């Protein structure tokens, strides 16, 4: 692969794009939200099941580019079992990293999400990486039934 693209398309991204984790429907979800990026037509549906203020289960379905699919897949892996406050903190840290507002890739709990840090070099792709997260944020704050990154 072209060297400069390795920052954006790491093996982890390809892996999660080919085999997205938690790619299923949760029938008795507490929250179901549609995310949409009108720029490229990416769509995802996020399902969340809560146990008190803990995310007991989370899944997604949809159609999108490698970056948005991998981001959604990694997000569901990392926030499962976390409290809402912890998920909120992760979203904040992740958002700062992909938008280039923070260089702290070693932030506690960020884990594999750091592979998406390369997105900051590609302003047109930041929305792909944040679509799932904006959907999560929106679902948990109950602001809207659907969320758009435009």
């Amino acid at each position, binding site marked *: 692969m072209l060297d400069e*693209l390795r920052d954006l398309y790491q093996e982890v991204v390809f892996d999660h794009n080919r085999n997205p984790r938690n790619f299923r429907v949760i029938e008795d979800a507490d929250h179901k939200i549609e995310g949409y990026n009108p720029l490229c*037509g990416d769509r995802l549906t996020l399902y969340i099941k809560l146990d008190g203020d803990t995310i007991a289960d989370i899944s997604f379905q949809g159609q*999108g580019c490698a970056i948005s699919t991998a981001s959604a897949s990694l997000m569901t892996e990392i926030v499962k079992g976390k409290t809402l406050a912890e998920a909120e903190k992760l979203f904040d840290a992740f958002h700062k990293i992909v938008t280039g507002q923070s260089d702290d890739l070693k932030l506690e709990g960020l884990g594999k999400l750091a592979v998406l840090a390369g997105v900051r070099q590609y302003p047109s792709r930041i929305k792909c990486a944040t679509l799932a997260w904006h959907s999560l944020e929106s679902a948990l704050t109950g602001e809207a039934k659907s969320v758009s990154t435009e």
Partner: protein
Amino acid sequence: MNQTAPHVTPAYPIERIRADFPALHQEVHGKPLVYLDNAASAQKPRQVIDTLAEFYARDFANVHRGVHTLSERATARYEGARDKVRGFLNAARMEEIVFVRGTTEAINLVAQSYGRTNLKAGDEVLITAMEHHSNIVPWQMVCRQTGAKLKVAPINDQGELILDEFEKLLGPRTRVVAVSHMSNALGTVNPVEEIIAMAHAHGAVVLLDGAQAAPHIPPVDVQALDCDFYAFSGHKLYGPTGIGVLYGKCELLEAMPPWQGGGEMIRKVTFEETEYKALPYKFEAGTPAIAEAVGLGAAIDYMDSIGHAAIVAHEQELLRYATERALEIPGLRVVGTAAHKESVLSFTLDRVHPHDIGTFLDHFGVAVRAGHHCAMPVMDFFQVPATARASFALYNTHEEADQLIYAIKEIIKVFG
């Protein structure tokens, strides 16, 4: 397989043409730029860039109101550009050429001025399933305002208008037919002569959206076509942004009310009433895009200097060559395979999303559009979220088509 691409028409001075476009001679990610996003906007020749600079440096002033020399010069050049557009479209009269910001504004002008005056509840506006948003939304808006109904003629799997179905949708209530001359997402060229004849037989007026057609299937002869309105943009025609054209038949424009009020379009104002200027100034409120109009005139001169037939032949050959080579790639699907199409190669790849294709192609220096091309209903019809779209212009080469094909094959290797 022949990799050497010896198809360049000897008579077509491609090297001289490429030398006219400064933007083409740069590297992107260390690779020579291959600019194939022309359906979105085209690069500008030195002749247009120099005209803008020279106009601003010497002749610039506001038009139509100054008694001083610079205003007279600027007015002469602005009106000179209008006459060039008249010639480009073979319109009968200068009054029929209205300068607007672009295709979108031209269509909105017709929808709001002609549409609001002539549509009432129960009337119908007929468009096609291949329109881009600029030729859908203005009609939806005026239909909502007037109670008229928007009807949509279907397309087939090749992305061609189904002419029989189109004709069936025409009726005594059809007042306006608005159709793209050439589709931006699919490249389809519509049989506009038949469309116009059918629509006129039912008493409807016809607007042709020429945003894609004007640069790629010139010359457009509005008198031979007998269309009622024709809209196009300067920036896709190698000219500046912020300038476009609405052609309208004189008798229609005469009867239409102004849609924007303000300076330049008035003859006399009191607080009780306003008298409007004659055509085309009635529709040109405010200070117009003066330099941009002059620049559009230079772009038209530039296309004339190459020759319309030569441009069309070159682009057709490029599209044929690129399509043929693209179809050799396993997993590549061409979206839009009309028998008559120009300039546009829209495609998808198995297992690679168009957005990823766009980013990868960029790293090979190849600029394409990835997305829905402001034609979301077209994407829905073909059941794809988006496509990657390579679109060719008069300065593109077979070697650039080869670079596109090479880069696509590399992407497939990476994504497996």
